[in-house]
């Protein structure tokens, strides 16, 4: 796909050049710029996930088990929930960072269009979600290593096959991608009108109140169940793609007519 760009000089509109710019090339450059222009996005991943790893390996739920009243086993239950929560926080803050107006203004220092800007943001979100999913999943290994090194006793954990590892990472990626898209839409809505987000929160609260008043199942719980109760990875991915597409379509609707100002 090709786009045309005419560069004008400051004096009065005489044509300085005439170039055809590939959309793909522009998107590539913008994605590279979004992801690698500043190290903060990756350093924040390291910092936030390390914090989650420390929490996950330090906080545990103690319990005990007795067999026939003879042998007592003291069990410390660890999980990677903290690490996952930190990964959600990172993906949301990063997607907000990508969506803030200053970043979008920088986008237009490239020879770009609304479309290339939008596509590059989507690709950047997908890359962020993928990196976040892989590092969060690998981070679980670091948590179990820390537990093994610094806590006494036998460490019990489930061993997965390679295919199961891939499925686990894919599932994690799906959740992070939805969080990223939701964060990006939220910041776009906020920039469209500062009252949109509070308004949506009020609307959400109203729906919650009405659902409890009329004893209808909570919509948020139904949304959570819609994803959490899915046992097939393929169907889950279809759901993720559909929901992410809706969220990003919302982003496109919000941003396509916005002015670029510096």
């Amino acid at each position, binding site marked *: 796909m090709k786009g045309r760009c005419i560069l004008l000089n400051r004096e009065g509109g005489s044509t300085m050049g005439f170039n055809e710019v590939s959309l793909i090339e522009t998107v590539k450059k913008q994605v590279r710029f979004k992801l690698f222009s500043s190290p903060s996005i990756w350093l924040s991943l390291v910092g936030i996930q390390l*914090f989650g790893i420390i929490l996950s390996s330090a906080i545990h739920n103690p319990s005990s088990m007795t067999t026939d009243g*003879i042998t007592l086993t003291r069990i410390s239950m660890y999980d990677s929930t903290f690490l996952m*929560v930190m990964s959600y926080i990172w993906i949301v803050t990063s997607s907000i960072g990508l969506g803030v107006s200053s970043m979008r203004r920088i986008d237009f220092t490239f020879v770009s269009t609304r479309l290339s800007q939008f596509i590059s943001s989507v690709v950047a979100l997908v890359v962020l979600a993928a990196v976040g999913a892989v590092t969060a999943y690998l981070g679980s290994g670091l948590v179990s290593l820390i537990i093994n090194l610094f806590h006494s006793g036998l460490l019990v954990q489930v061993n997965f096959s390679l295919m199961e590892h891939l499925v686990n990472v894919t599932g994690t990626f799906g959740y992070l991608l939805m969080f990223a898209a939701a964060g990006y839409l939220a910041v776009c809505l906020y920039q469209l009108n500062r009252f949109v987000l509070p308004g949506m929160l009020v609307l959400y609260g109203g729906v919650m109140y009405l659902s409890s008043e009329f004893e209808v199942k909570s919509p948020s719980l139904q949304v959570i169940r819609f994803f959490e109760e899915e046992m097939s990875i393929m169907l889950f991915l279809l759901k993720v793609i559909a929901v992410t597409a809706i969220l990003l379509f919302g982003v496109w609707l919000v941003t396509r007519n916005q002015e670029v100002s510096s």
Partner: protein
Amino acid sequence: MTFILPLMLFFLLASILVRITQNKDGRPPISFSRRTGLYMSFGYVLILVVAAVVVKILPMSDETLFQPVDQAEFGQYKAAYSEFQEGKMDSFNSPFIVRKWHQLISDNQLLIKPRTVGSMPVKVVIERIPGDSDTIDTFVFDGKLIMDDYEVQGYTEEIVIEPQANVLTVWERETPSYVLSYFEHDGVMTQFTSDTSFENNHTTSEWRPILYLKIPESIEVTIDESIKDQVTEL
């Protein structure tokens, strides 16, 4: 709660860090170049990959207390255990017999009792043999505690069997206590694969030691009421 606690800690630490690291002009005193930042990020990923590999290689146990189960030896043990329990072993030369001795019985009466009421750390099997004698043969068949793929070392060592005249007292020095750490991935990570709950992924099998007594018919045996259900008379 698991969601709220890290969230609160995160925002608390983040706000403290921002306040500490900002200069008066609002700019952070420490900043990393793009290259340094990328090196640090790649370094982090490298650490994660190495950790994942090490976790696979490193034995997940305390080296002294838990040892990997020798499956062949464990198979032989299980077969010998049931035979011994049923008195079917032709000879008592099994490598799994850890103690054997003769006990001289006075007054032709033997009382078997625990030191603590109802607490018997062994199974008792009594084989009555014909004849008139004041001596009984006793054997202790080793016990095993298997946790997942690991065997607890010295499981039988804490058991004390004290023969005194016509009383045989059995007890345990202290209740054995073992420490397990269980790690499970967050539910999101394993939604489409196996269940990672502790109950479904941890197995404990306990093979209690057997105290086998060959007692001549001339000796009258009394078993403490509190342990009668733990005694098998062949």
